[in-house]
């Protein structure tokens, strides 16, 4: 899900950085003091999620968790994911400094979108569970789509890589859908206040 340094054209990097900075600035401005510990915890969760590898055949994929983070934090997901991506880039070489804006946008924006999807109310338990599944599934699918579009925008030479980037993320979409469905159900039982923005 992370785009490495030296891959993208400068205009894409600048565009991504400008849009992400605007979202981060808005999140910072509207951030309440009591919300900061929650943002920090979810930033740490996103950071460590990248180290949890799920073996799929000869390769392995890692968790993204942008669905559950976005569902709880909303626009603040830009802060949590941005800080975690910065540390991953600086300390582990996942992504990088120049691609921080693009990577933050590709991962955090789908999380913010599913935050609003979660506000759609259903009376049926099954429909609610499908919605929770789609929060996880849809956020990774949107991120993978944005990642592929970013790579495709880079030039014709990247079309095959863009296609492969999307296809290789399909298993993680399903895995995250299931994880998110259970996580939302669990959090609703033990700490429903955490969803005060979306589900309340």
């Amino acid at each position, binding site marked *: 899900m992370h785009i490495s340094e030296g891959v993208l054209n400068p205009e894409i990097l600048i565009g991504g950085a400008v849009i992400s900075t605007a979202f981060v600035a808005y999140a910072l401005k509207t951030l309440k003091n009591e919300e900061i510990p929650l943002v920090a915890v979810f930033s740490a969760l996103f950071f460590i999620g990248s180290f949890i590898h799920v073996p799929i055949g000869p390769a392995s994929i890692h968790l993204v968790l942008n669905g559950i983070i976005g569902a709880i934090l909303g626009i603040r997901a830009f802060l949590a994911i941005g*800080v975690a991506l910065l540390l991953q880039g600086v300390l582990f070489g996942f992504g990088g400094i120049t691609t921080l804006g693009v990577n933050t946008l590709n991962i955090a924006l789908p999380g913010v979108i599913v935050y609003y999807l979660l506000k759609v109310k259903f009376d049926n338990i099954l429909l609610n569970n499908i919605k929770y599944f789609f929060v996880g599934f849809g956020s990774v699918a949107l991120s993978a789509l944005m990642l592929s579009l970013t790579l495709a925008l880079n030039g014709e030479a990247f079309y095959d890589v863009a296609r492969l980037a999307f296809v290789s993320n399909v298993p993680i979409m399903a895995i995250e859908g299931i994880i998110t469905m259970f996580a939302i159900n669990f959090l609703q039982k033990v700490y429903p206040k955490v969803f005060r923005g979306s589900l309340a």
Partner: protein
Amino acid sequence: MRIFLLSIIMISSVFAHRLYILADDDGKNLHVKAYYTKSSFCQNCEVNALDKDGKVIASGKTDEKGEATLPFKTKNMDIEVIASMGHKNKVSYESENDPLTEDKNLDYKKILLAFGILFGIFFLLKVFKKR
């Protein structure tokens, strides 16, 4: 004269079956190539990596190209290749790389460092927002 010719044939036969070993590593895996001549590889031969006490720390078998990949476990070792018909050779190997296990420990330290920085950033943000 007969003895001389016979000796020459036997010596050339010995050289024709001398087992050569080449080895390299990338810090993760040890790559070994065993061969008799440029075009004759030591196929399906047993390859052992031995520590300084002679204990086998990794082993494997060569493929049709005489190549085998073993896990790289220590910087200094002996590499032994055992072929059929009693052909055998052993070489000492010293690497410039440290085995990957040391890097893994380093990763955990980095993860802890990252957590420290991450919570530090948000603590500063909380202090800043309080004002």
